[in-house]
């Protein structure tokens, strides 16, 4: 009995302590100026799918973004302020991404958001940042985000978009009269890439002989291949991402597809190439925003690679990883230019910014805030042609930055 009373008393005390503790925390929360008083750090929120099928690409994005932040802090910060990156796992889920972004804005009081990988998740983040007038640099491919219905004056699109990627890849792979079969992941990314390729094919005069949609994240592609073979195309264009890319190409190659047709992909992924043997990807052609081999010709690529190697024990940056760097770097350049994080001023600065941080000159188009930039076309090397483990691709073309491969402002619904 006495034991029971003791327990009760203890519980009461602990409850009182808890309430006190809570009150204390609430006090700090309701007085944010206490936390913010010391030389306002510039906080950048970074939601990205650290877990799930795009984890490899997401982790590279984080590493590159952290490099951009480190370089800024090493030279004394931006406008005299330290920079901090707040990374959150969005689990490749739109709801999760929206929640994490909201937390970053409301609780962590970030000054800007950079990140999200996968078009649907990116659009969810865009919804949140748009509603709260929050700066957002998106770093994943999407056509929708350029269109007027999803436009936010606070959003800038650092990644390539499907229209420009496919236009350039098709230019270097499709020919007049080529017969093309598309194997397409059945979600926004696949659909947008397909639309882009077909638009380019029409202009070139290539013929679409088949479109096969496969479920997102499929493990087995063997049942799609007999149809592909029976259509006898010149080109098999595989529009999917992450592990789907490695799995589908590997299984197609097992069926001897490469002996009968050329495999073209919108984006040739560094990490997925590493996930299989060189023979599997050998000869596969695809686009890219960045490849470390650019360092032979582009001085800023060399500087970026060297800084990355120094920070990560000799590792090299990858395609999607580089978006983390260019996205954060362009944002910081604009903040530095205006000497603060006041959104309207940063927007004005971003709109006129010319930046070259890794891959040649880039600038954000005024109407849709799309980054106008070079597009690479890569071909996966044979094992015998590789000079090192990282020597994966041959650069077939480095198509210079041009608005010509983008949809026009009026096509997207903008008035100007």
């Amino acid at each position, binding site marked *: 009995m006495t034991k029971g009373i003791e327990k009760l008393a203890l519980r009461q005390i602990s409850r009182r302590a808890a309430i006190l503790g809570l009150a204390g925390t609430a006090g700090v929360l309701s007085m944010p100026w206490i936390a913010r008083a010391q030389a306002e750090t510039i906080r950048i929120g970074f939601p990205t799918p650290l877990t799930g099928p795009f984890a490899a690409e997401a982790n590279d994005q984080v590493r590159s973004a952290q490099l951009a932040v480190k370089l800024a802090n090493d030279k004394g910060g931006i406008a005299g302020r330290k920079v901090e990156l707040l990374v959150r796992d969005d689990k490749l889920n739109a709801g999760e991404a929206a929640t994490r972004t909201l937390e970053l804005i409301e609780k962590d009081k970030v000054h800007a958001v950079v990140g999200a990988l996968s078009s649907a998740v990116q659009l969810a983040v865009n919804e949140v940042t748009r509603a709260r007038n929050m700066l957002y640099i998106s770093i994943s491919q999407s056509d929708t985000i350029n269109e007027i219905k999803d436009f936010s004056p606070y959003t800038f699109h650092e990644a390539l978009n499907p229209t420009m990627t496919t236009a350039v890849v098709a230019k270097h792979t499709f020919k007049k009269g080529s017969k093309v079969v598309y194997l397409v992941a059945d979600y926004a990314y696949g659909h947008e890439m397909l639309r882009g390729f077909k638009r380019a094919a029409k202009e070139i005069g290539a013929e679409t002989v088949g479109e096969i949609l496969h479920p997102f994240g*499929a*493990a087995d592609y063997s*049942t*799609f291949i007999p149809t592909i073979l029976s259509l006898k195309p010149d080109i098999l264009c595989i529009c999917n991402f992450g592990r789907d890319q490695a799995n589908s190409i590997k299984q197609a190659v097992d069926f001897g597809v490469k002996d009968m047709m050329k495999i073209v992909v919108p984006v040739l992924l560094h990490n997925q190439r590493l*996930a299989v043997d060189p023979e599997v990807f050998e000869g596969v052609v695809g686009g890219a925003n960045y490849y470390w081999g650019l360092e032979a010709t582009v001085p800023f690529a060399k500087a970026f690679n060297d800084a990355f190697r120094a920070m990560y024990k000799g590792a090299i940056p990858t395609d999607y990883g580089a978006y983390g760097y260019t996205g954060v770097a362009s944002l910081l350049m604009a903040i530095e230019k205006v000497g603060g994080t006041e959104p309207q001023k940063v927007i004005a600065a971003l709109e006129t910014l010319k930046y070259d941080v890794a891959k040649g000159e880039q600038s954000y188009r005024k109407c849709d805030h799309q980054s106008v930039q070079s597009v690479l076309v890569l071909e996966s090397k044979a094992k015998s042609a590789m000079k090192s483990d990282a020597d994966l691709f041959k650069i077939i073309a480095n198509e210079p930055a041009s608005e010509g491969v983008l949809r026009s402002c009026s096509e997207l619904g903008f008035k100007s």
Partner: protein
Amino acid sequence: MTVQLIAMQLFSGLALGAVLIMVALGLSIIFGMLGIVNFAHGALFMVGAYAGLYVAGLTGSFWWALVLAPVLIGLFGMLIERFLIRPLYGRSPDDPLLLTFGLGYVLVEAVRILFGTDGIPFSTPAALRGVVNLGIGFFPLYRLFVIGVVCTVLLLLWIGLEKTKFGLIVRAGSADPLIMRVLGVDISKLWLVVFGIGVGITALGGVLAAPMRNVSPEMGTLVLAEAFVVTVIGGMGSLAGAVVAGLIVGVAVSMTSLFAPEMATIVMFALMALILLVRPNGLYGRAAPGL
């Protein structure tokens, strides 16, 4: 759409069915004999693939990986049974289910820490590369090999269960453990071995799948779903059911791929729902023990 294409599609479906049987077999054995719903099945499949990768890396031979990895992971499975699952016998069937569910997460995270989150290449062994002309079209030699292995495993299992004294005891034990104990059979030893065999076969599935599906920490997630579909359609715990269900699902997926490819994954689940409506215990199922 030619007859040839449809024939080829049918064959791809049966071949996929063989892969699905392989994927589901371990789950089916452990449920059928022990009544345990092993939610760590997908994770153990993945661990099997990594073990295969490791052994192949050490020995430089796929064949050693194919033999040793299932044995190693089977032994690991026996440890799981002895120290984690055995204390839960006689309690509600939810307990081992929750335990294995958590164990699955632990295994995936452990592999992420040890081997990283990126996928790792697993080459098709040189002797099994290339395609074979079946008369109706070309088919990868490796997939034909997988069909051969699955048939062999099924045959061995059948002989083991139906033609040996051990099999007789196992079947009796799963039918009435209490009577077996009264008769003086050490049932816990039996279950240890059966669990080990089930996990070993799961790991074998992982090694076989590795050259087709690439190796990554998440490779087991979809496998768990596939295995459940096959096991539930066949009837929980029925070996013959798993075989028939695997083939039916494979052909259903393949035919859907031909006519409505974007539905190729969902068709498995639709089929499962349909069959459960007509036969609540699956095709060959009896009412599940203890449920």
